[in-house]
């Protein structure tokens, strides 16, 4: 560890298309289950894309009605995941205020790629139809992109700073890297870190579809997300949240916390190439992987497993293959769990970090489903179809976002 400060993952929480918590999400992944389904709402009928990876458990089954009135879906799902992670870490009971960390040493880094877009659209409909007086007074706190982080901070009583990085699909990778920095810099002992997204609605889908970025395999939803496969035709939009509890090792050990893995390092770079196209040579992502290895004090040969960003777009998957081959080599066992839960945008890095952490912890790589006919240029060892049991001393999680953002996290066995 280059900085001398050891940071551990002591809690996890998630709500995803595969399950309403981290355990059921992980079970779904190991079973190779697809969370992609047709969109039942009427509005989908006129869109070119009519499939998505929708939440397995609706927030209304978890949070009460009055609470939900003042939360955008992106905030509600973040709160659900954050409360699970908090309880999992054994940090206390938010309702009594009893907690195992000083609030002034507790920070939040929870990002979203898009924020409360659904609230913005709904309230604009109300404005157009009924005038300004009918617009909800909760509109601004529901749509502001820091809303999810702020609610998590309020619920858990965090007073060492609440941050909400936003870098499209690299958002939560970057949020977790920021959490690592805060602990290393001595500004917090515990950081609630992760990401959230919930924009399965007409305008975002129309926008992504207009970019020709999404799969249009509407008649075969479970097979639509197929990273690294020759027949891949774009990503499948997912929704959900993932939250990690990052904790300074001495703090965790002093309270006898259970430990999933060590967050050993992070690498953040920007492509400087194009606003949405990945650099086809993967130069920015290569530098991010190299930076993460250096930060973690790891050699490429130490990496046994990579949870790839691989969204199932033709260009993006290929650029990542190039970067992985160059930065790590072709020995790690690679997977893309997006084949099952779709692309969670700002929550992708957090949910996939949970997959990576559990892979390290349990010694099993979740599968990449639908990899029936691998791309001719795929010369990496991908865990196709079935989970792979193996020793994983160290693993990487990649997240890359529109705007040319690259965030790579290195987890090691603790």
């Amino acid at each position, binding site marked *: 560890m280059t900085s001398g400060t050891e940071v551990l993952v002591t809690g996890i929480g998630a709500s995803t298309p595969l399950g309403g918590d981290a355990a059921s999400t992980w079970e779904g992944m190991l079973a190779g289950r697809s969370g992609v389904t047709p969109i039942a709402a009427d509005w989908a009928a006129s869109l070119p894309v009519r499939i998505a990876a929708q939440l397995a458990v609706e927030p209304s089954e978890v949070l009460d*009605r009055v609470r939900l009135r003042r939360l955008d879906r992106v905030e509600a799902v973040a709160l659900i995941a954050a409360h699970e992670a908090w309880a999992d870490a054994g940090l206390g009971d938010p309702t009594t205020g009893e907690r195992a960390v000083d609030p002034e040493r507790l920070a939040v880094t929870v990002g979203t790629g898009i924020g409360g877009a659904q609230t913005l659209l709904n309230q604009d409909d109300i404005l157009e139809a009924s005038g300004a007086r009918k617009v909800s007074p909760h509109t601004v706190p529901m749509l502001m992109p820091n809303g999810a982080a702020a609610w998590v901070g309020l619920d858990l009583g965090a007073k060492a700073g609440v941050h909400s990085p936003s870098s499209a699909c690299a958002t939560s990778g970057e949020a977790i890297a920021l959490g690592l920095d805060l602990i290393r810099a001595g500004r917090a002992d515990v950081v609630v870190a992760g990401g959230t997204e919930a924009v399965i609605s007409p305008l975002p889908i129309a926008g992504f579809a207009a970019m020709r970025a999404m799969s249009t395999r509407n008649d075969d939803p479970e097979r639509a997300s197929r990273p690294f496969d020759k027949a891949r035709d774009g990503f499948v939009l997912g929704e959900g949240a993932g939250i990690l509890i990052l904790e300074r090792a001495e703090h965790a050990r002093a309270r006898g916390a259970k430990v999933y893995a060590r967050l050993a390092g992070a690498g953040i770079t920007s492509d400087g190439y194009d606003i949405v196209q990945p650099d086809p040579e993967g130069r920015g992502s290569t530098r991010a992987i190299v930076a993460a290895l250096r930060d973690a004090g790891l050699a490429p040969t130490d990496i046994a497993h990579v949870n790839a960003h691989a969204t199932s777009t033709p260009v993006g998957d290929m650029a990542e293959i190039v970067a992985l081959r160059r930065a790590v080599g072709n020995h790690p066992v690679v997977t893309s769990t997006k084949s099952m839960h779709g692309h969670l945008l700002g929550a992708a890095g957090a949910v996939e970090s949970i997959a990576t952490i559990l892979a390290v912890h349990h010694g099993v790589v979740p599968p990449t489903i639908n990899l029936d006919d691998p791309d001719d240029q795929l010369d990496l060892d991908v865990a196709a179809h079935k989970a792979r049991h193996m020793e994983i001393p160290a693993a990487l999680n990649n997240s890359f976002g529109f705007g040319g953002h690259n965030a790579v996290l290195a987890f090691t066995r603790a």
Partner: protein
Amino acid sequence: MATREEITAGLAEILEEVAGVNPDDVTEAKSFTDDLDVDSLSMVEVVVAAEEKFSVKIPDDEVQNLKTVGDAVSYIQKANP
């Protein structure tokens, strides 16, 4: 014309919908903020819903004077006799 009891019952319905207040707790002596935990943003929702329900206008300047449920009942009764 609505009686004070009818207006109180109507406000109780709104308060339950907007802020999750138990209708049994809504009596004329109760303060919206101190007794019923209605925060400032929810109070805006209550006012807008009450305007619609009772066909009255409640100007923003007036809202600060509506401390208790009874204050609101009196204002609504006066505004829509």
